[in-house]
């Protein structure tokens, strides 16, 4: 592959906060020209912190107040030269702004419009206001996560990033369709459904067995041993998952417990599952003598799936990511050089991802309005003055 896959595609990005910007970050890093449009009148809430630097890598950023008549006209001019437009406002907002699919597709008939909202754009609860963390509760996703018998978990940044990647996938699917048929499409995306689609085991368990699945902590329905085990140091743990009998025998040898490997009571997963508390104690007696990364090295050498339970700062410093070239040093808007994240895939023998620092609002106004739309500089200056390009 000589060019990045989305080379030549232009994306008009009306999205904000996390999910939409995550999607367009994937597209930008894979070669699309992403023009993020925002306004100082109603700033993207994610501009508040460093997160913005990650969510908006590789994009162009133009300022535009689309609630003005002239601003709306400029959006339409941008639509004419765009392949994709993406938005993630609450359902109905984009229509009230005068940018519903009927309007958008009249301006550019083969455009792909991707619209993501909490509960989708049809149905009795389409107007429900949502945050990703709430949708994790609404969709049953959190109902199978947590410690058994306790209150539901409330943490976890999951819904938005997951939806972000899925939106990028869906957009690429629509681009494929356009390449074949020449036609654009409107895509109605529901964040809630994206989450409910990821728990098929629980949905089918209920239908098969009448059972409302309870959370299991770190344990598994079938495999054992399966959990995190205390290592040297406060709040240090190594995760170990034994998925077959051979791994079990290797683990017993490593922790100097050949008696457990020889005991027929633990010879299969069902027996180990039944006696998991006892086995967990035996494993902890070994792990507590080791640092978590050291335990992983020893376990992996023995062929046992394992790894430390890490906080985000340790992930940032993870040798695996460093040596695999996951980070790229970029100059953030404060002038400092910082290591920022990349993509989870590599195009072998092809170009690397396009990764640049996140822009600041209005940084690319000249390119977007003068070069791309061909407006005279005096006209742009007037619209800045009138708080349209704002």
């Amino acid at each position, binding site marked *: 592959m000589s060019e990045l896959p989305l080379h030549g595609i232009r994306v008009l990005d009306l999205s904000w906060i996390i999910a939409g910007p995550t999607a367009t970050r994937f597209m930008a890093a894979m070669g699309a020209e992403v023009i993020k449009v925002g306004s100082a009148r109603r700033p993207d809430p994610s501009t508040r912190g460093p997160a913005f630097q990650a969510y908006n890598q590789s994009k162009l950023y133009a300022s535009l107040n689309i609630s003005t008549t002239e601003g709306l006209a400029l959006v339409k001019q941008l639509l004419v030269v765009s392949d994709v437009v993406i938005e993630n406002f609450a359902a109905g907002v984009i229509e009230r702004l005068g940018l519903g*699919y009927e309007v958008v597709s009249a301006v550019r008939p083969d455009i792909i419009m991707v619209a993501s909202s909490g509960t989708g754009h049809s149905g009795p609860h389409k107007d429900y*206001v949502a945050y990703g963390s709430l949708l994790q509760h609404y969709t049953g996703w959190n109902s199978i*996560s947590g410690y058994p018998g306790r209150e539901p978990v409330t943490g976890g940044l999951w819904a938005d990033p997951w939806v972000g990647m899925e939106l990028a996938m869906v957009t690429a699917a629509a681009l494929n369709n356009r*390449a074949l048929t020449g036609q654009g499409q409107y895509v109605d995306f529901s964040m809630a459904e994206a989450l409910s689609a990821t728990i*098929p085991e629980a949905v089918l368990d209920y239908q098969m067995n009448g059972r409302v699945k309870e959370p299991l902590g770190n344990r598994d329905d079938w495999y054992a041993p399966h959990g995190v085990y205390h290592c040297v140091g406060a709040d240090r743990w190594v995760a170990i998952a034994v*998925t077959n009998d051979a791994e079990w025998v290797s683990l017993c040898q490593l922790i100097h417990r050949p008696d457990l490997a020889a005991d027929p009571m633990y010879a299969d997963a069902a027996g180990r599952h039944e006696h998991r508390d006892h086995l967990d104690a035996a494993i902890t007696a070994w792990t507590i003598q080791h640092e978590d990364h050291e335990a992983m090295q020893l376990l992996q050498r023995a062929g046992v799936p394992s790894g430390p339970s890490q*906080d985000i700062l340790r992930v940032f410093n993870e040798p*695996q990511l460093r040596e695999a070239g996951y980070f790229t040093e970029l100059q953030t808007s404060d002038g400092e050089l910082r290591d920022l994240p990349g993509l989870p895939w590599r195009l072998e023998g092809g170009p690397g991802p396009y990764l640049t620092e996140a822009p600041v609002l209005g940084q690319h106004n000249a390119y977007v309005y003068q070069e791309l739309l061909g407006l005279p500089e005096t006209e742009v200056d007037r619209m800045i003055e009138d708080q349209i390009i704002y």
Partner: protein
Amino acid sequence: MLDVGQGISGPYCAKILAQMGAEVIKVEPPEGDAARHMGPFPGDDPHPEKSGLFLALNANKYGVTLDLASPGGAEAFRKLAASADIIIENPPPVSLADLGLGYDALQNINPGLILASITPFGNRGPYKDFKATDLVLYHMSGHAHGLLGAVEDPDSDPPIRAGGHQAELVGGMAAATAAMMALYRKRITGEGARIDISSFEAMVTQLISGLANSAYGRPAPPRDLSKVEEAAIGGMVGAIGGILPCSDGYVAISPREDAQWERWLLVMDSPAWATDDRYSTRDARQKNSPSLWKLLSEWSINRSKHEISRMGQEQRVPCFPVNTVLDLLSDEHLAHREFFVEIEHPAAGTLKYPGAAYRFSGTELPLAARPAPLLGEHNMSILKNLV
């Protein structure tokens, strides 16, 4: 598309392509995909044609069995590969390269082939040969710390993974995203691609906001509740939101902005304590969240989760009932959107499966085109006709 994957990540990638309309042929070893032995099963009785996980991941695909280590099996595979647009694999146990069927060999017979390989850590870095499962990836990537959030005693409450197999699904979604983009390029230029996907990096990429905080020298959010000063993004602690006990379960609320909080007070009929300095600003609510949540809980406990979420949404306050899968299957909104799709399977019977999160204008997705294949179901119809 050929799905040589086993277990979860590879087959999930192929499932996505199948529900987008691709003709997906699942190539299983003669003994079957490992997922056939993963639950749930009817009556908790393992049966290779009745695994709920396998059925969900492999609906809408055709299925053949091939022993790729045998000359005949490899030859049949090369014939299938010659006309494939995309092949997905997620070794171990099956690595096409180890079988002499890697990218270089297949590219000779199909120059425009897209080969996507998912492994736990990718083909690079010190852990490239390490084994990992969903549990391991969830913990290593930082998600387990975030999901549980802060606790009173970190040494007795270790971090936990999410239910299901989220880390493996993320690896599969990353592969589908990259493959779909590569397929677009192929349609424009005819070029193929070899894509290497790391499930670990896919999980890490879900937390780029946290990585950005680290890049700015910020500490990781503490796991010790007594050390929490500000609520983390996405988490629901204190002023950001949380769950309230109800007469029939829980409701999740998040009146995090001042305007939302004002409207939430209307939902509660403007309680007298609302004007107290301890609760009048977001910072104050964060500082005094234990006593605040006690007051909120005293109000919520006598009302149902649906009643509270309806009252909240009427005031445009983000709030939702805390649901189980049972609630989902009877949810009127999901029913109206026909989210669940019913598929009849010859061994497992008729079941409702979660559908897709997206609807394309003018195109109906083939979400219930056929049930997951029986082992070797299409050997006759597909393998017999190979030329």
